[in-house]
């Protein structure tokens, strides 16, 4: 892997949450935001004392304040003091209390973590758990009467993230799940939870942040005999290698550039789509690979797809891409991301699936125009390739937050 790739990681932040059985509101709060001004990604998980609305108020206050204070560069110790002095006091218990785990990721991939009374986070790197050194500091509570007996200790740690890193953190609903049951009289525990996380990552090395968080929470719920005894929340931050997609469409204006096109195609390290009959023929000729058309599921509107070794998908060009733009447009209007039912099997629907599944998309567009398409007898509006690709680029960038580059040949 090159250094350039090491530098650019995509940060996938996701969480999954279940409320304590019988509660209509949650007492754990998970917040995440990307600071547009400086590019930092700040995430907080807070667990309020008790459960239900009361805990929800405590954790929401804590998470919101922590997030705002850290985003405004307030020293965390000061932030923690303010939070603890602000939290309302529980009538029954006479204390005010909410835990938090705050993760502050800088654009240069430095990760700073502050933890207060949540179970310790789990950092998974290449199938093993890494434990950065934690420093601690105690927080002074102004009002000793409403403070918990125990001294408040905040743990700080930081490390430089690497692509593939997963940071997992959770409320005590996870570690205490199953408590009082025969197999786990003292609860699932941090060690077993850690083992479970490692196993899940080993089993599916590409598991998304969302899926991993969900699996952990559902496992904890299962240990609680499917009736969660506490709010169970898990957050996962996955420093994913960006998923690259190449769409090669159209023959180069100058046939001398065919070899350059083939070079770009062969050296690309992500998923590859060839969209265009002539384009496929050029690659087939230059690479000596056969292109076979698939005649199953013929769609009356969209030409059939083909197969070629080394390409994940081969489709026709203009009509298919035109439909791709339409699907993306519809999707952006109704906020849905899935292609419509009738496009599921055709080339356009397949391209859309690939697009939505990728982070960085590169179009290589050959600008030679097929004169046959300009024939006024053509029954449908056949657009110029460049225009369609530009439309798709705009849709992907604005409505689907993808990084799109176009290169013309």
């Amino acid at each position, binding site marked *: 892997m090159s250094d350039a790739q090491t530098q650019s990681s995509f940060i996938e932040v996701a969480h999954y949450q279940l409320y304590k059985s019988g509660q209509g509101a949650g007492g754990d709060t998970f917040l995440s935001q990307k600071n547009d001004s400086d590019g930092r990604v700040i995430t907080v998980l807070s667990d309020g004392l008790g459960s239900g609305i009361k805990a929800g108020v405590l954790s929401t206050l804590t998470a919101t304040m922590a997030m705002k204070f850290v985003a405004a560069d307030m020293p965390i110790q000061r932030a923690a003091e303010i939070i603890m002095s602000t939290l309302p006091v529980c009538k029954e218990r006479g204390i005010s209390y909410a835990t938090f785990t705050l993760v502050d990721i800088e654009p240069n991939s430095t990760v700073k973590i502050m933890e207060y009374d949540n179970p310790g986070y789990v950092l998974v790197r290449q199938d093993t758990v890494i434990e950065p050194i934690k420093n601690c500091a105690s927080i002074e509570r102004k009002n000793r009467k409403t403070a918990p007996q125990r001294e408040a200790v905040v743990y700080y740690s930081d490390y430089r993230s690497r692509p593939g890193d997963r940071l997992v953190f959770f409320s005590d609903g996870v570690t205490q799940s199953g408590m009082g049951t025969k197999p786990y009289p003292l609860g699932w525990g941090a060690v077993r939870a850690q083992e479970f996380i490692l196993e899940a990552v080993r089993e599916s090395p590409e598991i998304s942040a969302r899926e991993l968080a969900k699996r952990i929470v559902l496992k904890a719920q299962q240990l609680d005999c499917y009736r969660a005894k506490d709010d169970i929340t898990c957050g996962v931050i996955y420093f994913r290698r960006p998923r690259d997609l190449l769409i090669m469409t159209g023959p180069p204006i100058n046939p001398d550039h065919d070899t350059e096109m083939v070079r770009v195609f062969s050296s690309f390290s992500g998923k590859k789509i060839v969209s265009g009959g002539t384009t496929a023929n050029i690659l087939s000729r230059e690479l000596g690979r056969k292109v076979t058309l698939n*005649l199953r599921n*013929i769609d009356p509107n969209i*030409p059939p797809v083909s197969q070629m070794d080394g390409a994940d998908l081969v489709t026709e060009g*203009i009509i298919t891409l035109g439909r791709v733009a339409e699907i993306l447009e519809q999707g952006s209007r109704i906020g849905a991301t899935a292609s419509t039912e009738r496009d599921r099997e055709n080339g356009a629907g397949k391209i859309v699936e690939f697009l939505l599944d990728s982070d960085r998309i590169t179009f290589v567009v050959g600008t030679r125009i097929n004169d*046959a398409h300009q024939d006024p007898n*053509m029954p449908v509006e056949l657009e110029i390739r460049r225009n369609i690709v530009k439309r798709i680029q705009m849709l992907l960038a604005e409505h689907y937050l993808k990084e799109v580059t176009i290169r013309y040949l």
Partner: protein
Amino acid sequence: MSDKIKVVVCSGTACFVMGASDILLLEENLPEDLQGRIELEGANCLGYCKDGANGKAPYVTVNGELISGATVLSVMNKIREIAYA
């Protein structure tokens, strides 16, 4: 005759919009006497549309013989011609 008649339908952009989409369904429209006699294949672009001398899209080849401006009927006629030659 035991050899199947090979029908290749171009599915490039120009051909598809000019009617190849119908010809790809040829097997479903085959009269009884021709059923099982042909081998239908699609091609992503046969390249004929780049030269006006080849006539108009869509292009189909039947046992290598080019048909331009092809329709289900003209392709069928050609198949019949070969089948009963």
